[in-house]
């Protein structure tokens, strides 16, 4: 792989991961390991810390990857630090134990709609509100409501690593699908920043299992990830069919995790219950990504270039397509692999 690309990937993953690890470890040591027994300011501080760390991780890593956020954004991706700021504020309010539900939901939706408006702004300037834009904005809101419903439900019922892993799968799934379906490595990396911060938090949760995810952290991750996913869907260069397919995968993963969580009932809080929920989500995501990878129209290797990096997918596509054919995902796969 291109050394510049490796440097870029490392910048997008290591600093936010270290930030998550260090800050959450410090918070845990400073505020103590008590969860619900914490009261007053200490509880508020620890609950609000999660969206704040996620926000700082996102904006800081954006800065490392793309330079300082601009005061007057023109392209949709330049709005992402602003959306992150809005999502961070909404996340902090969502963390407050006494905040009314209407305020929590209202701020989360406001941050989401800010992201939606920033994403379609340039398209509105070109041709006004079109059916396609209405569909994309509706998808943004529906997807966010689904993700918030499923992830809040699981994170309220569970402590420790399981809700964090579920959120990591959610961000990483969107990230991977953006790379496959939109051809934008930058958007994929941006979606992966939250996953990196959460991995740091995950390591702390393994050390101190009583750690809770909290509604604020979920709100931040869902808002920023849904907006990035929408931008990838709206402006990505993948085939329309593939984009349509990948719109299903992460929602299906969330629904599967929620069904597993609900079916477990009282056993939901057990260690085995946590494994079942996470394994269900991971399995649905893995199958979905394999299917999306199989459907991608991999570019032919350049006839004159021995090691064409842009035909790299072809090296992996045959095994992926073979797996996909076994599970019946890819139509006409046998023809394509010459079997």
């Amino acid at each position, binding site marked *: 792989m*291109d*050394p*510049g*690309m490796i*440097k*870029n990937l490392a910048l997008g993953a290591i600093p936010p991961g270290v930030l998550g690890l260090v800050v959450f470890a410090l918070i845990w040591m400073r505020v103590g390991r008590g969860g619900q027994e914490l009261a007053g300011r200490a509880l508020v501080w620890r609950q609000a810390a999660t969206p704040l760390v996620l926000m700082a991780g996102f904006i800081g890593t954006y800065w490392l*990857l*793309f*330079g300082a956020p*601009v005061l007057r954004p*023109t*392209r*949709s*991706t330049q709005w992402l630090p602003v959306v992150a700021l809005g999502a961070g504020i909404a996340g902090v309010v969502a963390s407050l134990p006494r905040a009314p539900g209407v305020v929590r939901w209202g701020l989360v939706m406001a941050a989401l709609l800010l992201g939606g408006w920033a994403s379609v702004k*340039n*398209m509105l300037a*070109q*041709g006004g509100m*079109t059916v*396609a*834009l209405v*569909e*994309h904005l*509706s*998808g943004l809101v*529906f*997807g966010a*409501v*689904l993700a918030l*419903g499923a992830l*809040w*439900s699981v994170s309220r019922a569970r402590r420790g690593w399981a809700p964090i892993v579920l959120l990591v799968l959610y961000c990483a799934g969107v990230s991977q699908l953006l790379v496959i379906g*939109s*051809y*934008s*490595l*930058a*958007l994929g990396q941006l979606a992966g920043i939250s996953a990196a911060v959460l991995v740091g938090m995950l390591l702390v949760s393994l050390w101190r299992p009583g750690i809770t995810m909290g509604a604020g952290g979920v709100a931040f991750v869902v808002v920023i990830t849904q907006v990035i996913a929408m931008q*990838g869907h*709206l*402006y*990505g*260069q*993948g085939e*329309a069919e593939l*984009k*349509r397919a990948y*719109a*299903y995968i992460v929602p*299906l993963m*969330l*629904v599967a995790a*929620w069904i597993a*969580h609900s079916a477990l*009932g009282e056993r939901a809080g057990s260690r085995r219950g946590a494994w079942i929920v996470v394994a269900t989500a991971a399995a649905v995501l893995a199958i979905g990504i394999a299917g999306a990878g199989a459907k991608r129209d991999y*570019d032919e290797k*350049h006839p004159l270039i021995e090691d*064409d990096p*842009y035909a790299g*997918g072809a090296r992996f596509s045959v095994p992926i397509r073979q797996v996909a054919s076994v599970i019946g995902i890819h139509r006409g796969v046998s023809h394509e692999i010459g079997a």
Partner: protein
Amino acid sequence: MKISKHVWAGAIGAVATLGLVSVAVSDGAGAPAPRAVAPAVADGAFKVDPVHSSVVYRVKHMDVSYFYGRFNKIEGSFQVDASDPSRNSVEVTIATDSIDSNSAGRDRHLKSQDFFSATEFPSITFKSTSWKKAGEAGAAGETAYDVVGELSLLGKTREVTARVTHTGTGKGMRGGEVGGLEAKFTIKRSDFGMNYMVGKGLGDEVTVMVGLEGGRE
């Protein structure tokens, strides 16, 4: 109580999934089709002949070599008056999604949000604002100018200075009058917000070379 919460969340999930499915199914070709607006051609100006015009760019790769690519769709017009450069003008629109780097996969990457965001910004435009005869002479029969103009890329407009050479005027294959210009200028892509991989193997400075042939309207 727990069950009712789950049911509530499930109901939201089911509705949202239905919504997503309907969005996905009715998505059609995805994003709305981008529009590139061709500039109007003034009386007496030369209308750019896209078949005999070229836009080539070069950028440094891995800090060791220059990579050249091109754009295949170009429209516009120009006017050259050797006796009065203040009457000269050039206006060009390039279709962003016509980028051609000799690799289909790389073209898709270049059209993505990492670089040109071709769906969001379907065109790149240049419009001259002032012309001045260059001090040094061009080749025989050619006149060189320093041309200041506004380049719009990724929603940002920046002033750039190009060395523009009037390369000739004569009779075309169909008998009409044809004229030619060649332009060369260098920009920093980061000035336009194209920051991806700057300093990480892909240069910031991009040199653009344009060869225009136009027929008199």
